[in-house]
């Protein structure tokens, strides 16, 4: 039974929260593992605070899937990826594609946190003529590699750019995040088959395994299990981890490419709406917009520890 609610464009512009947004930037080089994790945790906390304010202001967004993926994004952009705002033209830099483009607000806030986007621009989210669409657009934001939104597009594109890197003899890596519901799209299995057979070891597919999709649990819709078996049978080296554990994520990303020469699939077990008490694991928060009270409650749960 679905509990899906409908998109509610319930904009309250007066509610644009002036949630101070400090750009922490990349984790500095040479710090301890503990300091890495602390930096990422703090960045993720600030990103979530900004994200919820953006969604509230726009009256639209996909907060559940944003909160499940933020730790992955922050770990990649602030630490694991070889990619910096001043060197987007560098051919050997890493690539990232958010295939589950509906989590755009999470990407935008992370890009701002990492210095790829002026933080002021965040308040234009979904406004008329804004560059910050409800789904990321390649032509509108320099750091966005591919326009996504329709599910099942990002992984084939990631395969293509990984091929390009191989042709250039580059050591760059491509990271792509797909939703678990998104893996119902056949285009992904086409791309996985290609990547597996061509042993595209510089490709890392991260499945945001939050077990919910738009209207119901993935298992009540069209289940993916046994997911690891599927991915292995398509030629991937498969890793399971907690997708909210920055340390585990950082280590997994460090281990790409896998020694086996296969492309890597990371099944990142996450919780949709994490860590907000009243959102976590509730499918209604796929694209529900929080009330002012709910925003206040969520922000209080996102105070500095």
């Amino acid at each position, binding site marked *: 039974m679905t509990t*899906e609610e409908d998109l509610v464009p319930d904009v309250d512009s007066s509610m644009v929260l002036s949630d101070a947004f400090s750009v922490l930037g990349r984790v500095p080089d040479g710090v301890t593992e503990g300091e890495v994790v602390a930096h990422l945790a703090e960045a993720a906390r600030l990103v979530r605070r900004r994200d919820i304010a953006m969604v509230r202001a726009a009256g639209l967004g996909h907060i559940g899937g944003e909160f499940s993926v933020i730790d992955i994004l922050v770990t990649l952009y602030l630490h694991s990826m070889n990619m910096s705002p001043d060197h987007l033209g560098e051919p050997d830099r890493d690539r990232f594609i958010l295939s589950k483009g509906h989590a755009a607000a999470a990407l935008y806030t992370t890009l701002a946190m990492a210095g790829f986007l002026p933080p002021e621009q965040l308040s234009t989210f979904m406004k008329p003529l804004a560059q910050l669409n409800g789904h990321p657009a390649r032509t509108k934001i320099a750091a966005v590699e591919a326009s996504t939104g*329709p599910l099942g597009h990002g992984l084939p594109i990631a395969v293509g750019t990984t091929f390009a890197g191989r042709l250039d003899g580059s050591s760059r890596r491509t990271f792509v995040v797909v939703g678990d519901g998104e893996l119902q799209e056949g285009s992904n299995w086409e791309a996985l088959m290609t990547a597996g057979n061509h042993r595209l070891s510089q490709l890392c597919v991260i499945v945001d395994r939050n077990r919910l999709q738009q209207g119901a649990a993935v298992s009540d819709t069209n289940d993916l299990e046994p997911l690891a078996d599927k991915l292995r049978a398509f030629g991937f080296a498969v890793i399971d981890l907690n997708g909210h554990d920055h340390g585990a994520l950082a280590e997994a990303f460090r281990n790409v490419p896998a020694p086996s020469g296969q492309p890597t699939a990371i099944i990142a077990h996450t919780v949709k709406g994490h860590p907000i008490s009243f959102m976590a694991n509730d499918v209604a928060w796929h694209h529900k917009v929080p009330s002012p009270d709910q925003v206040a409650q969520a922000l209080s749960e996102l105070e500095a520890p």
Partner: protein
Amino acid sequence: MSTIETDIPVLHDCRDAWVEALLELAETDDRIVAVVNDSVGSSKLGPFQKRFPDRLINVGIAEQNMVGVGAGLANGGKVPFVSAAACFLTARAMEQIKVDAAYSQHNIVLVGQSPGMAYGELGPTHHSIEDLGWLRTIPGLTVVVPSDPIETAQAVRWAAAHDGPVFIRVSRMGVPMVNHADYGFVPGKAVTLRDGNDVTLAAIGTVVSRALAAAESLAADGISARVLSVPTIKPLDEVAILAAARETRGIVTVEEALTTGLGGAVAELVVQHHPVAVRFVGVRDQFAPTGSVEWLLDHFGISEEGIVSAALDLLA
């Protein structure tokens, strides 16, 4: 300012009429099955799923499979209503629409939800403004674009009884009633909502009410505008359009779509039989920017003012 604001009419989400009609049909016809791509909520099919859990097939996020499953259900004697956001249904399953629905003449109803720019802020990937131009090019498909809840419900009932593939574009954006309570939908028949002989406003779907408002405004300037509501872009009511071409000085087409939709259909007809001036109100060969649907409609002049000025330009 459109009449929507001045008259403050009640606005309707046509999805309510769609689901009500489907539920009613399903009560007495157990061949009716709904097929969705994780779109129960966005199709407002919650009540259907509750009442007929076995007769709602959710294939997950897989539009090609969704349309293929619909064709297979038709093969097995069912009357499938395949309901998904119009943008994904059409673009992602285009070959299935061509081959499994149209060429195969399977008895399948494709329901394109939240079309046009209803998902305004979500951006062009979620806008479905190409659909009319795309679908009217596919032979053997009936393409219905209802303008209000009355027409939506009638189109759903008609499609269930009709043998052959049908696409119905169901609006999410609020629209006022434009048809009379005793209106009877007939595919291929346009409806003259207002008579006139200076210019014809031919409108489709969500924006018929805006054409009516424009006609009112033109009347105040002494211009008599005929308003044609065109519920099926395919088949087109050639008789009514050509009569308009002959009897008025030209036609303004109005649609929440790229102008290759109704604009193109009308242009193709008149140049062959009675060349006359046409002005297109719609989106002209571009992806729309971000913004709410109301903002976007105004931005592109798909508004009372935009229609009036297109009519004045035509008559100038």
